[in-house]
C-alpha cells in the first residue's frame, strides 16, 4: 500500500465521491488503495444497476381514467368566471363594511330629521 492508502477515507466521503460529488484527494487516494477503490466500485455498480432498472409504460386504461376524471372534476369544481368588480363587491368584508355604512347613514338621517 502507498502512503496515501494508509489513512482511509470514511465510507460517507467515498459514497459522496462515487455519487457525483468528486474529490481530487479521494481520486488520488483511490489509485493506491485497493480497499477504498473496491468500495467506490461497488457503489458505482449499484448506481448503474438501479439506473438501468426498466420503466413501465402507463397503461392505456390509467390514461383514460385520469384524463376523464381531471376533465370532469375540473369542470365541476370550476366556477364560471365572473366580473372582477362583482366578485370584489360580493366579498364578505365589503358586505360588512357596506352594511355598517348603511346603518350609519340611516342613524344620521334619523338624527338630522328628528
Amino acid at each position: 500500500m502507498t502512503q496515501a492508502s494508509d489513512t482511509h477515507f470514511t465510507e460517507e466521503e467515498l459514497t459522496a465521491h462515487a455519487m457525483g460529488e468528486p474529490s481530487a484527494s479521494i481520486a488520488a487516494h483511490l489509485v493506491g488503495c485497493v480497499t477504498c477503490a473496491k468500495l467506490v466500485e461497488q457503489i458505482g455498480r449499484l448506481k448503474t444497476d438501479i439506473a438501468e432498472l426498466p420503466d413501465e409504460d402507463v397503461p392505456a386504461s390509467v390514461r383514460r381514467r385520469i384524463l376523464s376524471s381531471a376533465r370532469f372534476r375540473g369542470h365541476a369544481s370550476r366556477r364560471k368566471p365572473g366580473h372582477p368588480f362583482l366578485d370584489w363587491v360580493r366579498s364578505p368584508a365589503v358586505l360588512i363594511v357596506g352594511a355598517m355604512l348603511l346603518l350609519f347613514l340611516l342613524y344620521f338621517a334619523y338624527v338630522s330629521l328628528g
Partner: protein
Amino acid sequence: MDEAQFNRIYEAYSRKLYNYVLWVTRSRPMCEDILQSAFVKVWKYPMVPQVERELEAWLFTVVRNTCMDHFRSNSRHARLRTEFSAESAHSHIDDSAENRMTWEMIAGLSEDDRTVIYLHLKMGYNYREVGRIMEMEENAVRVRAFRALKKLRDQFVEEPV
C-alpha cells in the same frame, strides 16, 4: 390551466411520475389512485411553473405529497400493501434474475429512502433539488442517501469491505 396544457403535461411527464409512484408503492392499484388524484390537483392549479425542469420538480412534489396524503388517510391498510415484500417487489415488467435481486434490495428501504434513491439515481436530480422536491434540507437528503445506499450495498455485496 387549459386542456391543451394539461394534455401536454400528461404526455410529457405521466410515464416518469407513474414509475416513481410504482417505485414507492409497489402496488399498481394504489399507484393508479395516487396518480389520478395528483393529476386532478395539477389540473386545478391556476399557475404551474413554466420552465421545464422546474415544472418536472414541481410535479414530483405534487405526486409525492399525494402519496403521503394517501398513506396517511389509509395508514394501516396502505402500510400493509406497501410492505414491499420479496414477492411483490419483482412483480415488475422485468424478470431477469439480476433485476429481481435489485428490486428485492429496494424492498428493504423506507418510502422516503426509495424516493431519494429514485430522484437522485434514476432521475438525476442533485441533493439540493431532491431536497426541494421532498421539502427537506440538502444535508438531510445527503445523509438519507448515504444510509440508503449503505443498506443496499450491505445486501448487494457478497463480501463487504
